[in-house]
């Protein structure tokens, strides 16, 4: 085997390869530290945060479940948690994709396409505010994010102050049940943002001893734990009159529960309550108003 001469051509190739290597290694860093101009959000709660911190104009597409703020209705949809449309996402040339923590395949694909991602997972109420701050910094709206977070914190503090010293009613927080029956009742356990919201609003979660976000409970455990208030979250408004009578009638079967006896079965309607986003302060205020009118 003869040694190959160090020709001009190979020098050029080497230089080109080195440049390519540097480019591949540094592009993600450059992209990550640049203020992203084309953001795709696959998490509705974080879409709300983007708009709340002033990054709304940078959002180019959202998930199929996004509906707030109203501006998102005009944006293209790129799938959701279980069915993200990778092809469309890449075709939209994003420079930041907000993914949910469990979307590992999508995250890997984005990494291969050298598109930076922001990974998020639902957790407690404090995590909402931390995420909002991080998202603000990442999108070049650090100062606005701090302001928005401070405003939420101030409203939460006001609620805390208002309910301080008041008797905290034992509260059952229901977020899903089969319509008009007491089947498949899902309630909040002692973890997650709904539990945190209830505690700030001055309620004492009757299932706080269970270290779970969501618990299916039987009517027996509800009878045994005897909540003073049943707070039911519903996506849609229940019309007053007969429909409301029907909803209350299903609970009235548990006649010995203090909440039923004292007419303290209360409904909070609207999608906002179950979204861990910037509207959390408003939701806590509504809960507090229901618990401590």
């Amino acid at each position, binding site marked *: 085997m003869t040694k190959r001469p160090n020709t001009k051509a190979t020098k050029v190739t080497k230089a080109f390869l080195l440049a390519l290597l540097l480019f591949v290694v540094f592009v993600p860093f450059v992209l990550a530290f640049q203020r992203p101009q084309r953001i795709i959000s696959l998490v509705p709660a974080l879409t709300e945060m983007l708009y709340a911190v002033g990054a709304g104009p940078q959002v180019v597409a959202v998930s199929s479940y996004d509906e707030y703020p109203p501006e998102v209705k005009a944006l293209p949809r790129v799938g959701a948690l279980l069915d993200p449309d990778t092809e469309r996402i890449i075709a939209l040339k994003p420079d930041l994709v907000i993914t949910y923590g469990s979307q590992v395949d999508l995250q890997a694909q984005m990494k291969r396409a050298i598109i930076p991602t922001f990974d998020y997972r639902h957790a407690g109420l404090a995590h909402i505010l931390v995420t909002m701050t991080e998202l603000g910094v990442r999108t070049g709206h650090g100062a606005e994010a701090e302001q928005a977070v401070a405003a939420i914190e101030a409203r939460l503090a006001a609620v805390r102050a208002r309910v301080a010293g008041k008797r905290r009613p034992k509260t059952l927080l229901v977020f*899903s049940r089969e319509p008009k029956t007491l089947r*498949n009742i899902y309630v909040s356990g002692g973890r997650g943002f709904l539990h945190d919201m209830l505690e700030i609003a001055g309620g004492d979660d009757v299932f706080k001893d269970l270290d779970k976000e969501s618990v*299916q*409970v039987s009517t027996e455990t509800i009878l*045994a734990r005897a909540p003073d208030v049943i707070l039911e979250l519903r996506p849609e408004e229940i019309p007053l009159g007969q429909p409301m009578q029907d909803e209350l009638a299903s609970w009235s*079967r548990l006649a*010995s529960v203090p909440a039923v006896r004292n007419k303290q079965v209360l409904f909070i309607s609207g999608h906002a309550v179950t979204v861990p986003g910037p509207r959390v302060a408003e939701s806590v205020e509504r809960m507090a108003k229901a618990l401590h009118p």
Partner: protein
Amino acid sequence: MNIRRRIVTVVSLFAIGAIAVVLWAPTVGSTSISLAKAFDRSIPWEENVDAQIFFVARLPRVLSGAIVGAALAAAGVVLQAMLRNPLATPFTLGVSAGGALGAMLAIAFGLEVGMMGVSSIPIASFAGSLLAIGIVYWLASSQKRGLSTNVLLLAGVTLNSFFSAVILFVQYMSDFTQSFRTVRWLMGDLDVGNYSPIIAALPFIVVAFGVFAVLPRTLNLLTLGEDVAAARGVEVVRAQRLAFLSASLATGAAVSLGGPIGFIGIVVPHLVRLMVGSDHRIVLPAATLFGAAFTVGCDLAARTIMAPLELPVGIITALIGGPFFLWLLVKKS
């Protein structure tokens, strides 16, 4: 021992066992209650927590468990004999898939056609079951020779896959909370909330059992083969028609009440056969009683093991039924 006495003795023993379980089950649960207080009429209903736990939370569950278990176990016995296939279950002929599709559609489209205290989901589920029964029956009886068990099996299995595909499509198109509810429905749930769904399902189950009552001797002959049965004076086509329709009706009603709770319809009949032999005059009533007790027992486990968390009863029936069945199978052979 003559056969009549043997039937009476064995069935009485199973009946005593089943009654004992059904009476005992509502007295235990995640909360300890005082029976004396529960039955004390002098305490106003609104203040009597023990009575409400007993009558509102536990008794409907135990009753629906007993009915669902009895219906599925008996339907399993009838179908296994009629199809001469030990692997047949009440869900083999597509009835449960039809019921599931009905329930899925009710959940996905938020149907609100509830009547008399029964919500739309059981009603839609029962309608779906009837549709499936109708399709399978029409396909199987369209041949000139009468009801063909082969066509019945093939039509049932194909309809099962077809409905399952439609179910997956409906689930895929619905949103997260609906998808979760549909998946949860498929795991089975006996916490029916009140007595109305039980009362609504009962007439269909009673009719089915009325037919079951005249079937055992015919089933014994059918297991020997259609020709033998015909030679011994059985009107084979009529018997098969009755067996299929009654077993399907019982299954449809049971599924609408508690969801497609697996394992009962296959494990209980075989367990009972291992215990008492293969004479359907004993197997059918014994499996009915054992199915009731087994399901009530599994639901008791479902509501207490991880209390205050609920476990889906369909998971318990498989977890308890599977190993127990295998153990008995090995021990007997």
